[in-house]
C-alpha cells in the first residue's frame, strides 16, 4: 500500500518543499573561490555552459562561461540560481522507510537489501514484468544507459520507460519516420543564417530562453519570423507574423501553407523527385486544404495562412523550430510530420541556414532518449525487437540474447498496468508523476496499489511521499557525466563537489542493487566515465553512434556532435548534408497528414479549451525550482490565464479565485485576465501539485505512435468561486497551497 503515511501538512513541514534563499556562507562577498568549475546548467535541454564557484566543497555561486560556444555566457534565471540547490535544508541525507506515521531513517544496506528482496518476491509471485522501472530525461547519458541495462539485465523486466515520454517522443517519432534519425537536423548556429523562421508551438522566451538571441540575430540579418501559438508569447509580440492558432489546429496551418505553396509553384520538385518518397500522397492530401478550409481547422483567418505561405514559400533559406505545443497531442507525431513536410517540400535542409530542429525540454531531453531506457529501445537508438540489434547488445552486455526482454509498456500504459494490478512493484527515479502525468486522481490511485515502491531522489518529491523506501541520490553537480544538448552536442557535466554524506550517485545505487540481484559481475563500474566507455561501445554502429566521443574530446572541443563513429571523426553538427537521409535508401519518407480532432474537444458542458505549459522560473514538476526561493518568488503559484472577453462572460475579474473543472477533476487558482490569449482558451502552467495541479484536469489520452499524452488540449469549464474549498489550499504555495 502506497498511500501517504502521514498527513500532507506533516510531510511538507518535515521534507518541504521549503524555499531556500540564502547561499552557502550567506550573502557576503565570495571573494576568490577555491575552484571555478566549467560545467553546465542542469535545467532544460539547452544545457548552457556555466562556471560554478566552489569553496570548501560547497557550490557558493556562479560565473558566466563566455567561451562556451552555444550560449556564450548567457543564462536564464534558472541557470543563475541553480547553484542554490547546494546545501538545501530539504536534501535527503539518509535512506528512508515508510512507517505507520511517516518515514524513518534506515541504513543503505537495509534499504538495498529490502529492495532486492521485494524485486525477487514480486518476480517469484507475479513474473519479471510485474516489477517496472520509470526513469527520467534529466539524468546523464551514463545513468540513462545504465538504467536501461539494469532493467534488462538485473531486474530482467520489459517494463522500463521514462518521462521523456511526456516530452520528446512525438518529435522523435516524426523525425525518425521521415528522416530515419531522431535528432535536431542542424546546429543552432544555422538559425541566424536563415531568411525565414517558423516557430510552431514553442514558447522560446520561457522554455528555451537563450535561443531568443539566435532568433533576434536572424531578425537583425533580415529574417522574417512566424510564430504559431494560442498565446501571444514574449517572442510572438514582435515577430513578423503571429498566428494565434487554436490548440490542435496546427495541421490546418501546415497543410494550408503547403496548399498555397503548391499553387504558387514554391515547391522544389527536383529535390522531391531525387531525394524523397511519398510526395504524391502529400500533394493529394493537401489538395483540399484551401486557405479557407484550413482556416476553419486552425481557428484563424485564412489570410494568415496565405501570408505564412508567402513568407515561407519563396525564401532561399529557412529554419523550422517546433516543440511541445504541437507535440503534446494525440496527433503529436502527425503535427510534427505535417510541419516537417514544409521543410522537405522546399528542399531547404542539410545546408547552412537551412533545416529544422525540435527544441528539447528536459536537461538531457536528447541524450536520455538514445541510450536504451525507452520501452522499445536498446542503446544507440537501437530497436529492442530487431534480432541483429539484440544480438549486438547481448554481446556488449555479456548475456544471452534470449534473456533480453522485448518491448515493454510506455509510461502511461505502464501506470495503467499498475492501476489494473498487473504491475506490483516500481522503481522510480528522476520522475514526479504526481505532478507531471495526466489525470492525477487516476495516477494517485495507481501508486496506492503498488505492493512495493522505491524512489531515488535528492528531494522528497510529491511522488516520493508514496514510496515504501526512498534512496537519497546526488545532484548533477555532485557526479560527472555527459548529456546531449538540444543540438545533438554531447557535453560534459563536471563534478563540482562531493555528494553529501549519506547520499549516493544513482549509478552506484543501480550497481549495488545489481550485486544483490546476482549480476554484480555485469555492473562492475568504478566511475561514471567507465560507464560512458561501455556506452560508446554499445552505441557503436547504431544511429546515435557515440563511439568516437570521449570525455577528453568533449572537454577539448567544447562538445562533440553525434553521430561520431570513430576517434578521428569530427562529429556531425549538421545532418543530411548532400540530401543524404538516415533511411537505408537515403531518402526522406514523406506522408500526407490529415487533421483529426482531439480526444476531448470543448462541448456544451465543458465549453473552454484548456492548454498547459511552463513558466520561465520553474522547471518541470518543480521538485527543484519550487525549492529555490528567488525562482519560486518569480512564479509562486499557477494562475488561470484568460482573455477579458471570456472573463466578462464568466463574470470574473483579474485575481478572482476560479474553479477550473474537467471531467476528471477540479482545481482552484487565481484568474490572470490578459488580452494575450485566444478568447476560447485558458492556460494553466503545470509545475504545481495537489489541488493546484493542472494535470488534475488533463486527459489520459495518448498518441497512438509516440504515446505522448495530450497535455495541450482538453475541455474545461471555469467559474468564479469566493474562496478555495479544497483540503490543501492552506499549504504554502510552493507545496500546492494558494494565496
Amino acid at each position, binding site marked *: 500500500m502506497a498511500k501517504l503515511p502521514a498527513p500532507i501538512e506533516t510531510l511538507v513541514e518535515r521534507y518541504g518543499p521549503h524555499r531556500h534563499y540564502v547561499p552557502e556562507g550567506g550573502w557576503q562577498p565570495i571573494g576568490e573561490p577555491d575552484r571555478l568549475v566549467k560545467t553546465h546548467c542542469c535545467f532544460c535541454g539547452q544545457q548552457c555552459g556555466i562556471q560554478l564557484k566552489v569553496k570548501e566543497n560547497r557550490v557558493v555561486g556562479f560565473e558566466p562561461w563566455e567561451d562556451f560556444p552555444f550560449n556564450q555566457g*548567457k543564462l536564464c534565471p534558472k541557470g543563475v540560481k541553480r547553484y542554490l540547490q547546494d546545501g538545501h535544508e530539504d536534501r535527503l541525507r539518509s535512506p528512508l522507510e515508510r512507517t505507520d506515521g511517516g518515514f524513518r531513517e534506515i541504513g543503505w544496506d537495509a534499504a538495498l537489501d529490502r529492495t532486492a528482496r521485494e524485486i525477487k518476491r514480486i518476480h517469484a509471485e507475479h513474473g519479471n514484468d510485474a516489477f517496472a522501472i520509470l526513469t527520467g530525461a534529466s539524468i546523464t547519458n551514463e545513468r540513462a544507459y545504465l538504467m536501461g541495462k539494469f532493467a534488462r539485465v538485473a531486474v530482467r523486466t520489459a517494463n522500463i520507460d521514462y518521462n521523456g515520454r511526456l516530452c520528446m517522443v512525438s518529435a522523435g517519432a516524426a523525425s525518425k519516420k521521415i528522416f530515419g534519425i531522431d535528432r535536431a537536423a542542424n546546429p543552432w548556429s544555422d538559425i541566424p543564417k536563415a531568411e525565414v523562421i517558423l516557430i510552431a508551438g514553442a514558447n522560446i522566451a520561457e522554455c528555451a530562453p537563450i535561443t531568443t538571441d539566435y532568433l533576434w540575430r536572424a531578425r537583425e540579418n533580415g529574417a522574417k519570423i512566424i510564430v504559431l501559438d494560442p498565446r501571444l508569447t514574449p517572442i510572438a509580440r514582435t515577430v513578423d507574423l503571429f498566428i494565434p492558432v487554436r490548440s490542435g489546429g496546427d495541421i490546418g496551418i501546415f497543410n494550408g501553407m503547403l496548399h498555397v505553396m503548391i499553387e504558387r509553384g514554391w515547391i522544389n520538385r527536383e529535390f522531391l523527385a531525387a531525394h524523397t518518397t511519398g510526395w504524391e500522397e502529400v500533394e493529394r492530401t493537401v489538395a483540399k486544404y484551401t486557405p479557407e478550409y484550413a482556416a476553419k481547422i486552425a481557428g484563424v483567418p485564412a489570410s494568415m495562412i496565405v501570408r505564412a505561405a508567402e513568407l515561407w514559400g519563396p525564401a532561399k533559406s529557412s529554419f523550422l523550430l517546433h516543440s511541445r505545443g504541437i507535440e503534446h497531442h494525440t496527433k503529436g507525431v502527425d503535427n510534427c510530420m505535417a510541419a516537417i513536410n514544409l521543410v522537405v517540400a522546399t528542399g531547404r535542409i542539410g545546408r547552412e541556414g537551412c533545416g529544422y530542429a525540435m527544441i528539447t525540454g528536459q536537461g538531457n531531453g536528447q541524450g536520455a532518449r538514445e541510450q536504451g531506457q525507452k520501452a522499445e529501445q536498446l542503446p544507440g537508438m537501437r530497436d529492442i525487437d530487431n534480432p541483429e540489434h539484440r544480438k549486438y547488445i547481448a554481446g556488449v552486455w555479456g548475456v544471452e540474447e534470449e534473456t533480453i526482454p522485448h518491448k515493454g509498456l510506455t509510461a502511461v500504459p505502464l501506470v495503467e498496468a499498475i492501476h489494473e494490478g498487473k504491475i506490483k512493484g516500481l522503481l522510480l527515479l528522476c520522475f514526479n508523476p504526481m505532478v507531471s502525468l495526466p489525470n492525477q486522481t487516476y495516477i494517485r490511485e495507481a501508486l496506492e496499489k503498488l505492493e512495493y515502491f522505491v524512489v531515488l531522489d535528492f528531494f522528497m518529491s510529491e511522488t516520493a511521499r508514496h514510496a515504501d523506501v526512498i534512496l537519497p541520490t546526488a545532484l548533477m553537480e555532485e557526479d560527472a557525466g555527459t548529456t546531449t544538448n538540444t543540438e545533438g552536442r554531447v557535453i560534459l557535466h563536471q563534478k563540482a563537489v562531493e555528494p553529501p554524506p549519506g547520499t549516493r550517485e544513482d549509478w552506484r545505487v543501480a550497481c549495488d542493487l545489481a550485486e544483490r540481484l546476482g549480476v554484480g559481475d555485469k555492473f562492475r563500474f568504478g566511475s561514471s566515465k567507465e560507464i560512458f566507455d561501455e556506452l560508446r561501445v554499445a552505441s557503436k554502429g547504431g544511429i546515435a553512434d557515440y563511439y568516437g566521443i570521449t570525455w577528453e574530446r568533449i572537454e577539448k572541443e567544447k562538445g562533440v556532435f553525434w553521430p561520431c563513429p570513430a576517434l578521428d571523426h569530427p562529429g556531425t553538427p549538421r545532418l543530411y548534408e548532400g540530401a543524404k537521409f538516415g533511411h537505408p535508401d537515403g531518402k526522406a519518407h514523406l506522408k500526407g497528414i490529415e487533421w483529426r480532432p482531439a480526444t476531448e474537444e470543448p462541448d456544451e458542458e465543458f465549453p473552454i479549451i484548456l492548454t498547459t505549459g511552463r513558466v520561465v522560473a520553474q522547471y518541470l514538476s518543480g521538485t527543484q525550482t519550487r525549492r529555490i526561493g*528567488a525562482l519560486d518568488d518569480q512564479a509562486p503559484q499557477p494562475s488561470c490565464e484568460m482573455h477579458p472577453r471570456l472573463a466578462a462572460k464568466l463574470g470574473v475579474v483579474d485575481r478572482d479565485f476560479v474553479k477550473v473543472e474537467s471531467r476528471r477533476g477540479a482545481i482552484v487558482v487565481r484568474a490572470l485576465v490578459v488580452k*494575450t490569449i485566444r478568447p476560447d482558451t485558458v492556460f494553466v502552467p503545470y509545475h504545481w501539485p495537489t489541488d493546484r495541479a493542472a494535470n488534475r484536469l488533463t486527459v489520459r489520452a495518448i498518441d497512438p505512435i509516440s504515446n505522448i499524452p495530450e497535455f495541450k488540449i482538453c475541455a474545461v469549464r471555469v467559474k468564479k468561486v469566493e474562496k478555495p474549498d479544497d483540503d490543501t489550499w492552506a499549504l504554502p504555495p510552493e507545496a500546492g497551497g494558494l494565496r
Partner: protein
Amino acid sequence: MSQELAFFIDYSRCIGCQACVQACEECDTHRGASMIHLETIDRPGSVQTTPQVCMHCENPICARVCPADAIKQTPEGVTQSSLKPRCIGCSNCVLACPFGVPKYKAEIDQMMKCDYCLDRTSTGKRPMCATVCPSQALAFVTLEHIEKTRRGRAVNEWVFGDEVVRTKVYVVVPPEVDTVRADLVQLGKKRAPEIDRDDVAAILEGG
C-alpha cells in the same frame, strides 16, 4: 573609440525572463541586492517588459540635486550609489532621475543604484546582467559591433522638454531616430485607429 566596450539596451528584444534581475544580485560588491529594474508595462494588455539600468548621464542630475554631495561620478563617467557616510536619505535623487533608476532603501537608509558593474567592467569583465541576458536586450559590446549586427541605431541623447541629456549607456531605436524625445507635447495626441497588436481577439478579427 568605437573599440571601447559600451552598454546597450534594446527594449524590442526583452522577453521579461528576469535573468538580469537574478544575476545582478550575484555581483560580489552588492550580493543579495539587485540594482536593475525590470518593468512590466501593462500585463493585462501586453507581455511587454523593459529592463532599466542606470543610464549614467554625462552630467548626472541625481548628483546635482543631492544636498549632501553623496553621489559621485568616477573618472570613467560611472555614477555610483550614494556614499554611506554622506547620504541623508532625502530621496531627492529618486525624484529627480528622469529614468527612475535610484531607489531609496529604508532598511539601510541609503540610496543604491546600478553602478555599471564597476568591479567587473574595470577589470575587463562584462556586467552580470548584460552577460547573462538571453535575448541580448542588454548587451555590453563595442559600438562598432552594434552598428554591424543590429538593424536599429544606438543613440545616447535624450530630450526632455528643454533639457538635453547625454548618457554613457545607449538605447537601440529604429534607424530613423537619432534622439529620443520624451516631450510632453506628444502625449494626448490622437492615434490613428489600428488593430491592437497585443490583443489576440483583435488580431483574430483583424486578420
